[in-house]
């Protein structure tokens, strides 16, 4: 093709399809992005982990007291499918997740509906939802003490998808001119019946949660309230504000006047007490001149256990293991296993510090983000520290390499966890 005929053909193409010729050799065909009734996507994840196990740690003993390996290799795969179907003012939304994991000891697989709800948008001011939904209330990055109707997230990976609860909700929004710019009210009815939300709390109850949001003088404010008999009533408040273009502060507080709490006694009895909890969190997010983002959060978990109370649990496991070795009896280990949901949960203590620093694209390496995250139990000074590197340079691929060192002194929270270190390579393909 001669140069002049090529030019003529190109000109004709531009005339027929102007969006193709928006910029030199770069095209933008808008037809590819027209809205469809059915939208879907998701990701496939492959993850390989190598764990070095703590010698004689409480949680390690509870899992491996019969045959104790020193390392554990695990390979897992996860498939998440999300999507929506819209027609008129109604939308069906879903997030489905299935995963399978094989380590040196066990095979585990799960398939869950994380979200599945119908949404009716009556107007921009009002939306009604029915079904299983994640709410994510609270402003904290690593923890959300005021997330009364959410599952606890993993501070090691706060951006992981979580499973929601089934309920019916209404969302009302109003905007204003003046210092109060936005006002939003969200109310959720959350039943707990046989087969519905059974892991939320006591059964055969209908619970109510509400949140009032205000954007007042450039500050996000939330007033949160929960009442019902599945869990005790509770009150929350959170805020978030940019103090400068590169500095954000946030905080939240949760008050539970009457909270039942199981506490292990020195004689290994478990005593149920009613306590008053006030948990709170304060955090900052700062962006430095060299594109270093730092997140720091202090969390007081009033629902957690003191150093002494955690120590009793670790001593129970040690005594149980000693008895198992001498007599083969697993009575105490079984009791400890029953308590491990409370004493072995992530952040079972009282006072924590979370610090994360992410360097965006150092040395002009586009889409490369090294980071380091530390979680410190301020009472016993045990910690986990995790350097990582994330690369997203290949379209729709994400690669993360992460190493975690988990340690502390004798009978401290992190030293009593199952593993002392973890090396993880995670690969995600989005579609």
């Amino acid at each position, binding site marked *: 093709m001669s140069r002049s005929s090529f030019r003529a053909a190109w000109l004709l193409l531009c005339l027929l399809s102007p969006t193709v010729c928006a910029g030199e050799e770069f095209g*933008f065909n*808008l037809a590819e992005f027209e809205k469809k009734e059915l939208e879907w996507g998701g990701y496939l994840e492959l993850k390989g982990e190598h764990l070095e196990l703590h010698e004689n740690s409480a949680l390690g003993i509870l899992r491996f007291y019969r045959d104790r390996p020193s390392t554990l290799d695990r390979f897992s795969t996860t498939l998440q499918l999300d999507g929506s179907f819209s027609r008129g003012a109604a939308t069906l939304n879903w997030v489905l997740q299935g995963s399978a994991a094989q380590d040196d000891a066990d095979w585990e697989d799960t398939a869950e509906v994380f979200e599945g709800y119908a949404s009716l948008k009556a107007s921009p001011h009002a939306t009604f939802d029915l079904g299983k939904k994640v709410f994510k209330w609270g402003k904290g990055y690593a923890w959300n003490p005021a997330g009364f109707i959410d599952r606890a997230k993993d501070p090691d990976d706060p951006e992981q998808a979580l499973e929601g609860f089934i309920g019916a909700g209404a969302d009302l929004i109003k*905007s204003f001119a003046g210092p109060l710019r936005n006002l939003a009210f969200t109310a959720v009815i959350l039943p707990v019946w046989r087969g519905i939300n059974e892991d939320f709390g006591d059964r055969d109850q209908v619970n109510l949660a509400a949140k009032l949001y205000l954007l007042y003088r450039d500050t*996000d404010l939330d007033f949160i309230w929960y009442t019902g008999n599945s869990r005790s009533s509770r009150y929350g408040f959170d805020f978030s504000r940019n103090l400068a273009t590169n500095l954000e502060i946030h905080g939240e507080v949760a008050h539970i006047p009457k909270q039942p709490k199981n506490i292990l006694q020195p004689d290994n009895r478990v005593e149920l007490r009613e306590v008053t909890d006030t948990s709170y969190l304060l955090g900052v*997010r700062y962006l430095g001149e060299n594109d270093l983002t730092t997140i720091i959060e202090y969390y007081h978990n009033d629902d957690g256990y003191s150093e002494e109370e955690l120590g009793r649990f670790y001593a129970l496991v040690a005594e149980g293991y000693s008895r198992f070795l001498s007599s083969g009896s697993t009575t105490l280990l079984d009791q400890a296993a029953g308590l491990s949901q409370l004493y072995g949960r992530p952040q079972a203590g009282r006072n924590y510090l979370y610090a994360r620093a992410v360097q965006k694209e150092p040395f002009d390496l586009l889409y490369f983000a090294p980071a380091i995250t530390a979680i410190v139990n301020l009472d016993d000074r045990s910690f986990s520290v995790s350097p990582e590197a994330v690369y997203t340079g290949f379209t729709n691929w994400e690669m993360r390499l992460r190493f975690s060192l988990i340690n502390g002194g004798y009978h401290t929270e992190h030293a009593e966890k199952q593993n002392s270190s973890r090396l993880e390579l995670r690969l995600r393909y989005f579609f």
Partner: protein
Amino acid sequence: MLTSMNCAKKIRPLLLLLFAWLAVILPAAPAAFALDGNEILARVDRNLQPESYEMYRKLINIEPDGARKEFVLYTVKKGREKMVALFLSPASEKGRATLRLGDNMWLYIPNVGKPLRITSLQSVVGGVFNNADILRLDYSAEYEVSRIEEKGDTYLLDLKARSGSVAYDRLKMTVDKQALVPTVIECFAVSGMLIKTLYYKDIKDFGDGIRRPATIETDSPLYKGYKSLMLYAKIAKRELADEVFTLNYLPRVEELR
């Protein structure tokens, strides 16, 4: 003699009026000059986009070796300070949405659920464009003209940020006199350092009286060898409720399309 005195008496009030007029006009002259610059800037804004609109854009990051990454965004804006951008592509970013209300910015990531406050200097896409470029309000909403100069077929405008919360402290904007749209904008930090340069290219008729550059190219001394482009495929006037620009609405922005 009498005649000349009568003449002086007649002239005196006229002179007084002239002095009074000069006394009012002269101190106000620089303000009037600056006002012209601000008027030009306001017209540049209206030529670039209607006050309330919906828009489709593609962002392309190009690395020194020619490797590219592309993002497609659907954007709606209302008035001077309300804006939402939703990622339509690639799949890894789909569903992410950013909201801007004046100086406030939030990022909604579907898995994370709740919107996180972000800053104008960060970049949700990586590369040379930052959040302030992607969620850009009218220039006249954030800047005032401190100096204007005519140079051939162009106006050279020096813009100064109205507040410290704006991403760039100063802009040097070259404006095409005839089309009244920017051709080049240099963005400077408070320190005077050049952060990036934006090149407006390929003037195109988007219909409904909107005729503006369809391509913005940018480079930065901070990202040597890298280049980013923003391609515009559709800009159309659209009236929207204020409630669309709220945190609670962010997960539902897709429903506006």
